């Protein structure tokens, strides 16, 4: 019995140690850092000065942080509704027995294979460009001119549309896997009972996709919180308020910006902690609101 315990410890120790060193230590360090004034991320502990909750108070009073959170929430809510709805629609269509299913599935997923940098460049240079962009040309054909898609008023929405375009395929695949898991005899029975396709979707497909929704909402939340590259691409030289999101603000605070050498790793850690709390809240609320253990199939 003792031998077995030794074996168990031997096998689990590397994993436990890795988890503690690679995950738990950075998490604890970040939380502790968020209460200190620290210039450089890797500064020695002796250079830290205790700030109490000042870093958090500073954040909540910062116009840029508030704007960044607003932008992130808009991406999460509006982008989330758009992405998950379109993803679900495509998934339902592709599992309804249409022809060329594999081709359409691959085509819709394709943006996920392409580098986000290339994708964002394509949208900025070839879709939104005021001189030769696709949207400008199409609207120009109908006599609508003078819309600056990348002006301060529309830039956020331009970025969001481009992001949703790139994200739909990923969530569609998860929905497809969920729909294909539903036994076909449920649909056959419903058809015999006289239910049409819409009724089948509302009464069978949607309820049985609850767990998939939970998964997708969690993935989407994490995706929104780590929304960095698209924001950087849509304001490439310096951060703009219309596209700023918390991780970009975090990056600027921790590493400084062009022409501004102020660095504050403590405030950066505080931003990280608030984002982690946001994810935890979303996960908790989603679990409370969407119960999937009442259905078995």
């Amino acid at each position, binding site marked *: 019995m003792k031998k077995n315990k030794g074996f168990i410890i031997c096998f689990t120790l590397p994993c436990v140690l890795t988890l503690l060193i690679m995950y738990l230590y950075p998490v604890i360090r970040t939380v502790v850092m968020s209460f200190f004034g620290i210039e450089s991320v890797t*500064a020695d502990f002796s250079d830290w000065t205790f700030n109490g909750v000042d870093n958090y108070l500073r954040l909540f009073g*910062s116009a840029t942080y508030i704007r960044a959170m607003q932008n992130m929430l808009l991406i999460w809510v509006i982008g989330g509704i758009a992405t998950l709805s379109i993803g679900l629609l495509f998934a339902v269509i592709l599992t309804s027995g249409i022809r060329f299913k594999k081709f359409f599935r691959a085509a819709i997923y394709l943006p996920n294979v392409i580098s986000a940098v290339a994708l964002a460049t394509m949208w900025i240079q070839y879709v939104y460009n*005021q001189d030769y962009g696709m949207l400008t040309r199409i609207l120009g054909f109908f006599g609508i001119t003078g819309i600056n898609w990348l002006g*301060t008023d529309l830039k956020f929405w331009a970025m969001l549309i481009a992001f949703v375009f790139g994200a739909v395929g990923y969530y569609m695949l998860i929905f497809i896997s969920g729909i294909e898991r539903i036994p076909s005899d449920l649909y056959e029975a419903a058809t015999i009972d006289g239910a049409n396709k819409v009724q089948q979707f509302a009464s069978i497909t949607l309820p049985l996709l609850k767990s998939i929704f939970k998964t997708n909402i969690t993935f989407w939340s994490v995706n929104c919180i780590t929304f960095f590259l698209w924001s950087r691409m849509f304001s490439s030289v310096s951060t*703009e308020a219309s596209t700023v999101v918390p991780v970009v603000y975090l990056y*600027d605070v921790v*590493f*400084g910006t062009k*022409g*501004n050498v102020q660095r504050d790793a403590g405030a950066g850690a505080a931003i990280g902690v608030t984002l982690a709390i946001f994810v935890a809240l979303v996960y908790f609320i989603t679990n409370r609101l969407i119960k999937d253990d009442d259905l078995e199939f």
Partner: protein
Amino acid sequence: MKKKLMSILLVTAMTAGLVAGCGNGSGGSGGDSGSGGEYDGVELTYWSMWNNNEPQGKVLQEAADAFEEQTGAVVNIEFRGRDISTVISASLEAEEQIDLFEEDYNRIALNYADYVADLTDMAEAAGYADNSYQIFNDKATEWAGFLCCITEQPQVGGIFYNQDLFDDAGITEAPATWDDFLAACQKLVDAGYQPMALDSAYAMFFFGYHLDRWIGEEAVAELTTNGGWSDNEGAVSAAQDMVDFVNAGYLADGAPDEYPASQNSMGIDGDVAMVVCANYVTSEVNANSGTELNWNMFNYPAVDGGADPTGAYAGSNSIAITSYSENQQAAFDFAMFLVTGEYDQKMADTANQIPADPNNTAPESQNGTIEVLQSLDSSPLTWNMGLNSNADLQSSIQDVVIKMYEGQYSSGEEVTAALDALY
């Protein structure tokens, strides 16, 4: 017997190959290397902010090879790209094996000064003052308390223009005052040209320059930090000038556009005359549009009764040597090898930039830049002339400034009120 003979032949061939191989190695590394070179056996690690496929990266590698041939010191270049600014701090704190690195000189002086060597004595012994722009050395020394870096790529900001369009519009002299400048803009419009390209990324740079001319950089920084824009007459006048400039139709079609669309229009459309930016804009436009414009440059015009009629933005990407490097002299010599003489000229010509050594010649795309750089007798202006002083509000201020260039405000008072609303 046959096997033995074959073995002897093979061993002989291998030995001959080995000897020949060694012979080639020493011959390939040049006459000095391995035979009494000044830094035989020295290895330097160089973290570069360039990529190896960029013109600067290629010249850097050539210089490293030539330096090795001349002195025997091997320079191992690690091309880190622009992301060097996010990793260099941690690497320096961990005393990672780095002898030299490239970065923006204000970050070297203000963020990494504790980890870089004082180059004052080595610079004096090498006569560095005669091969560099003193303004950068003075500024770096003022910030760090000692000479902490060697200028590699000087930059200067102002108004860059297409000389051909100016000639065609009959503008014979570079505008020195805001009124002259507006008159030049009108001449360009009359000649069928669009005066000014502007990408939103450089909106703060344009407005920052104009604010500096009215109230000076220090006052701009003070307003940026604490607000009170509407109470400052100079700030209101600066904003009013910009509103009038936009209303007069002097911005190019679509400006402020998304970087680099508007500045590219100078080369692609060929009818846009000017852009307010730093000197690298010329090589960017040439490269992006596949053209060779007839570039020239003048300092940002002065305003009547303004606080700063002549200041100009100047900055530098520079080379620093780590304080813990065991080969500081060799590292310094390599830095000097790169930023003076032949390789500095090569860097300037290949990358279309201002040479770090004033004794070298600027390429045509940098016409006018040296004159502005040499005219600066005091501290150069910083990037965005104080508008970056408030890290928390920087992006919100930029939003207001871009909106101003989009024509969303009808007066200077509206602009300053919008800025004050941020505090």
